[in-house]
């Protein structure tokens, strides 16, 4: 599988009244062609900022730091002039945004909104674009007679389908989905996830799927990265992350998933909340909430290192050398 996207050292800073805050802090990631990468984290972990950074849609007071790289097919999109981005968005990179419920303009029929995405990228004739738009909508399961509907006339699941149709309308190289199923009921969630898998099969979609819900990600992703306080703390194949989580945070996330089968277990919640990015703790960011923390954790800030083949983790438990180094 060849590499489609390679992101190196992506940092995004918000300038607040209390000083700059790194919402995304030195993130590296790669997405192969036809691969779905999952990014998991609590709210406030910087997921949405990561997504907006990848789309280059970060608004002031936010800013992507210099030195961040985003190579799509070998071309660094962060080096392009700002004016070149609209032509790339929707064609090279497409977004399925958070709160897809509100992602549709309430006063325009949905087929026109999809058609607009098509005309923005070359199709000059609006009639042809509208026809293509209706085909796309049919593909995601919107019946032809519902195509002219206004967003408020559609259910949440159907609106989500429209947003997906809009995102894939121009056959983008990479789709970035931010919480694509949040706010939908469970049955609809499953259907939308199935739709995404189908689109991946039929079109070879490459995708980054961001969610707070580990189970959502596990269902369709090939690899998973876990994000905490703007950093990646664990990365690996879905199966290994799920079955053998290394980082105490990942372990806590996995244990927090209710199990229907198997022996009865008490659900364990993670104590505390995500850290205040203005006042990060010393040493490891997770250390104040970590059940396995020891003295060094308050001193050493662990980096993301390979712990096993194909598995990276940022935790001193697995970094013999770093510990010794400090000692």
């Amino acid at each position, binding site marked *: 599988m060849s590499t489609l996207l390679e992101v190196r050292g992506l940092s995004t800073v918000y300038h607040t009244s209390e000083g700059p805050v790194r919402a995304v802090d030195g993130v590296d990631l790669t997405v192969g062609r036809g691969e779905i990468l999952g990014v998991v984290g609590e709210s406030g972990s910087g997921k949405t900022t990561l997504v907006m950074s990848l789309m280059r849609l970060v608004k002031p007071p936010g800013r992507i730091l210099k030195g961040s790289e985003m190579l799509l097919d070998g071309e660094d999109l962060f080096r392009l002039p700002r004016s070149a981005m609209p032509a790339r968005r929707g*064609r090279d990179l497409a977004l399925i945004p958070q709160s897809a419920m509100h992602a549709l303009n309430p006063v325009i029929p949905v087929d026109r909104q999809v058609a607009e995405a098509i005309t923005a990228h070359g199709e000059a004739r609006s009639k042809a674009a509208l026809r293509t738009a209706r085909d796309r909508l049919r593909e995601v399961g919107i019946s032809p007679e519902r195509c002219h509907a*206004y967003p408020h006339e559609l259910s949440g699941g159907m609106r989500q389908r429209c947003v997906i149709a809009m995102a894939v309308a121009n056959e983008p190289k990479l789709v970035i989905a931010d919480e694509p199923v949040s706010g939908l009921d469970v049955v609809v969630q499953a259907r939308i996830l199935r739709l995404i898998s189908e689109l991946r099969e039929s079109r070879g979609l490459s995708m980054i799927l961001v969610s707070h819900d580990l189970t959502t990600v596990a269902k369709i992703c090939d690899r998973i990265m876990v994000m905490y306080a703007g950093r990646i703390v664990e990365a690996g194949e879905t199966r290994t992350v799920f079955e053998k989580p290394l980082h105490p945070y990942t372990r806590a996330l996995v244990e927090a998933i209710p199990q229907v089968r198997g022996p009865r277990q008490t659900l364990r919640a993670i104590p505390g909340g995500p850290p205040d990015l203005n006042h990060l703790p010393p040493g490891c960011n997770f250390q104040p909430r970590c059940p396995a923390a020891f003295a060094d954790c308050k001193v050493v800030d662990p980096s993301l290192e390979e712990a096993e083949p194909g598995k990276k983790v940022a935790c001193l438990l697995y970094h013999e050398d770093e510990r010794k180094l400090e000692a």
Partner: protein
Amino acid sequence: MAQYALVLLVALSLNFAIPRLAPGTPIDYLVPSEQVATITPEQRERVLAQFGLEKPLLEQYWLYLAGIVQGDLGYSTQQGRPVVDMLLERLPWTLVLVGGAIALSLVIGAGAGFLSAARRGGQTEVGGLVFFMFLDSMPPFWIGMLLLVLFSGYLQILPVFGALPLTGAGGGFGLTFEVAQRLLLPLLTLTLVRAGWLFLVARSSLAGELSEDYIVMAEAKGLSRRRVVGHGVRNALLPLVTAVAVEAGTVVGGATVVETVFSYPGLGRLIYESVLSRDYPVLQGAFLLLAVGVIAANLLADLLYPVIDPRVRAEGAR
């Protein structure tokens, strides 16, 4: 709908009640002011009988309403003409002025407001805000007077009009030209005044829309900045229409003072003249007509909403 009927009824009732509750007797308001002191008892009786003022109050009210339905608003105490005729003579002038000012100020004020919101944060943005806040804070009649100074006093482009009759010299074109000349400055004044206010409304309305989620999606689709803003504008129009309708009364108020400054022959000027000459029936008639106009504007806005916003359309159908 019921709301507008209620407003109309209140306006009518106010008109009925005010002269009866005001100090003095209704007679004081029905005869030319200079005769009030010298009127004889017999004449007084005759006036009372003529206007049915000796009848019980409820019957008077009924007669008053019935009269209005038939287009009877009484007679001018100064000119002795039916008030309705005098109003209808002035109405077109005010309609043109108010309608023109609303349309122009929408284009200028809302246009600038949208522009400011689209590029907020820039230096022009703050300058625009302060400029339009100032514009919104100046008395309309004062702006009018200054424009008169500029155009008629210094540049001498436009003559100062009294309430001169139209000559119509030069046929249809000449008439149009005269009307346009007279209209120009009042229209400019009222437009400027309203543009300041509309700027502020449009700006905050679009700024609100631009922080909505569908804007992010529009950007993510790869639309140009112009078209992204267009999405916001489409949605920002609804509050704007509401604002224009709600403030229709204010425009009419502004027109009243502006017409006075320019001796523009509209209803506002008529109100001013009848205040000076204490011609109460005309004053009341003009108020009533303006109230009806404002109600009509609100009604029009109600009919416009569904065209602009499909969500309102759905509610209406339900």
